[in-house]
C-alpha cells in the first residue's frame, strides 16, 4: 500500500516528558517523523503537537491508536482527512552580492516575504507559507547561494471549527 503524508494534530497535557513519550513511541515502533512542532494552546495546561509522518493507511491508523493510548494524549486529529490550512515559517540566509541584491529583493516582494537581517554579504529572509511556497522560494534563491536555513516544521488547523 502506498505511503502518504499525514499531518497529525495532537492535543496533549502540558507535562514534563510528554514530547519524549511521543518521540519514543515513533522511534521505538519504527514510525517516521518528517517534522514536529510543539506549542501551548489557548487552554491552560494543553499543548498542540503538529506532527508530519509518512505512512500507508493501516499504519497511520495504528499510529493514531498508539498515540491515543498514551495517557497524556487528549486527542489526535488526522488533518489530512479533511480540509485544513497549513503554514510553516523558514528563515533563509542567502548570499547577497551587489549584483544580486535587487533580484533578491524582487523575489522577496513577489513572495511577500520580509528581509529581517542585512549584512555586508547576506540577507536573512523570513518566509511563511505552505510547503510548495517554501520549496519555490528556495529553488529561486539557490543560484545566489543559500548559506543557512532554519525551519519551524508545519503547523496546521482545520478549516471548520472542530
Amino acid at each position, binding site marked *: 500500500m502506498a505511503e502518504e503524508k499525514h499531518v497529525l494534530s495532537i492535543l*496533549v497535557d502540558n507535562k514534563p516528558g510528554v514530547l519524549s*513519550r511521543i518521540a519514543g513511541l515513533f522511534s*521505538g515502533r519504527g514510525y517516521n517523523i518528517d517534522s514536529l512542532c510543539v506549542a501551548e494552546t489557548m487552554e491552560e495546561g494543553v499543548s498542540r503537537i503538529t506532527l508530519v509522518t509518512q505512512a500507508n493507511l493501516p499504519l497511520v491508523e*495504528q499510529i493514531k*491508536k498508539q498515540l491515543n*493510548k498514551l*495517557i497524556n494524549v*487528549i486527542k489526535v486529529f488526522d488533518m489530512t482527512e479533511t480540509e485544513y490550512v497549513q503554514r510553516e515559517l523558514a528563515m533563509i540566509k542567502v548570499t547577497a552580492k551587489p549584483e544580486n541584491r535587487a533580484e533578491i529583493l524582487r523575489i522577496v516582494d513577489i513572495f511577500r516575504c520580509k528581509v529581517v537581517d542585512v549584512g555586508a554579504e547576506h540577507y536573512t529572509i523570513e518566509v511563511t507559507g505552505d510547503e510548495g511556497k517554501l520549496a519555490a522560494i528556495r529553488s529561486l534563491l539557490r543560484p545566489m547561494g543559500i548559506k543557512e536555513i532554519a525551519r519551524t516544521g508545519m503547523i496546521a488547523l482545520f478549516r471548520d471549527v472542530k
Partner: protein
Amino acid sequence: MKLSGAQILMKTLREEGVDTIFGYPGGAVIDIYDELVKTDIRHVLVRHEQGAVHAADGYARAAGKVGVCLVTSGPGATNTVTGIASAYMDSIPLVVITGQVPRGLIGNDAFQEVDIVGITRPCTKHNYLVESTDSLARVIKEAFYIARSGRPGPVLIDIPKDVANTTVDYKEPGDVKMRSYNPTINPNKRQLQKVVKLVEKARRPVIFAGGGIILSKSSEELTRFARQAQIPVTTSLMGLGAFPGSDPFWLGMIGMHGTYRANMCTSECDLLIAIGVRFDDRVTGKTDAFAAQAEIVHIDIDPTSIRKNIPVTVPVVGDCHAALTTLNGMLDEADLTDIAGKREQWFARIGEWKNLSRLAYVQGETIKPQYVVEKLYELTGGDAIITTEVGQNQMWAAQFYHFNRPNHFITSGGLGVMGFGLPAAIGAQIAQPDRLVVDIAGDGSIQMNIQEMATAVQCRLPVKVVILNNGYLGMVRQWQELFYDKRYACTCMDHAPDFVKLAEAFGAVGLRATTVDEVETVLKKGLSNYKDRPVIMDFVVDKEESVYPMVPAGAPITEMLLV
C-alpha cells in the same frame, strides 16, 4: 493534618487496598521504609529487585489485585526493568515505587541516580516522577487507577528522597478524573449484532481466547458463549485456564507449540472469534496464511491490538466481560435452531484431527520431562497453581498440565523471562497461602533467580520447584538441532550446581529422581510434606527431548513438525 511524604504514601496505599509489598530497601527509600514498618502492610524482602517485580506479578495474577513493589534508586530501579517489561507485555497491573535522589541532585549524576522514568517509558503503561509532596497522593491514586483499569499494566512512580521526607499539610486528593484517559468498556452493540449474525451463519467457527478473558474475569461467560453457540475453543498461552481443559469443546493451545487440531481448526475455519488476544507472532506464524478462509471478529479493550497484525472483519473495542455478557444475552434471542446439526460435520472433522495427532511422548529408560508434568497433573488433580520459567519447561507445562480454571497458570508469556517462575510462585503463594503452588522449571532458568529461595525460606513458604533437568538450555538446543545442523553453540550447561545440596544450603528441602520409578515417589513426597518450607525436586530427564508439535518461526501454523 501534617504528614510527611512517606506517611502520605502509606496512607494512600492502605486506601488503595494494599496489604503486601515486595521490596528491597536502599538509601533513597529509607524514609519510606521507616514509615512502612509502622503499618500493618506486609513487606516481603526479596533477594534481588527483579524478584520483587516477578513476585508482585505472580501475586497480582493469583490474587486478582494490583501487585506493589518498593525499591531504591539507581541499581534498585534498573533491576526492576525486566519484570516491568514482562508485566507490560502480559498486561499485569503493578505499581512499582522507586526511590530517587533528592530533587536538587537530579541531573547531577548523583550517587545511585538513574533516570528510571526515562528508562521505563516504553515498558510501562504510564510513569511518574513525583515533583512535590503535595502532588504525591494524587499521583498514587492515578497510578492505581491506570494500572487496574482498561488494559491493565505496570505503572512506575519515582519518588525523590526529599519528597518522601518533607512534611506538608495533607489534603484529600479526591476522586481520580483524567481527561486524557478514558478506556472504552462497553462495546458497540451494532458490532456485536454483526457477530451474532456471523455465528448464526458459520459452518466452521472457532473461538480463540486469550489473557484478556482471565484479566476481565470472564471465563464463565466465555464457557457459556461457546456452549450456547456450539463453538470449539482454543486459547493462547496467556489464555490457558480461561476455558476448561477438560471440556469436549476444548481444542488445546494454538500456535508454535499448539495442538495439531487447534492449528488445523484455525486454518480451516470460516469464522474466527478472537477475544482478549493480540495475535502474537508465536500464535499466528505466517500472518498471510493465518485463518485465511475466515471472517475474523476481534474483541479487545485495547484498540491498538486490533488490526495491528491481522486484518479483521468485525472489530469490537471493549471489555471482554461486557462484550461476552451482551453477546450471551443476544444469543438468547438469536436463531440457533439446529445449531448442533449445522456444526456436526465440523466437530466430526475436529475429532479426526484429534485422532490423527495427539500430544504424546514415548517413555523409555530415561525420565521424559512430559511424564513428570503429566504425573504432577495427576497427583495434584489439576488443582495446583502452576508458574513456569521460560523455554521447554514452559511449553511442556502448557501442553501436559490441563487447566480447568483461570488464574492457575502464571507464566511470562510475551517477554519470555527466564527466572520468572520462582519469584512468581512466591508471589502466588503469598496471595493464596492455602493453595499448592508449583514452579515448573528448567535447570537453566531456575539459576536466573535462584537467590529467591532464601526469600521463600525466610517467609516459610511451601513453594514447590520441579526442575526438568536436562543439562541444556533446551529450547535453544532444540532449534539448533532442527535448524542449525545440531551445532549446539553454548547451550550445554554441564556445570550446574547440585540442586539438592543447594536447596539444603538455603534451608529448603532437596529431592532428586534419576529413574522413572522414582518420579512418582519424589513428587508424592515433595508435594504432600514440608508445609513450612520450599522444596526443590530435581528430575534428571532425557537430555535431548524436544517439544512437539513445532511450527518453525514464520511458517504457516499448519506446517507442524509433529515428532
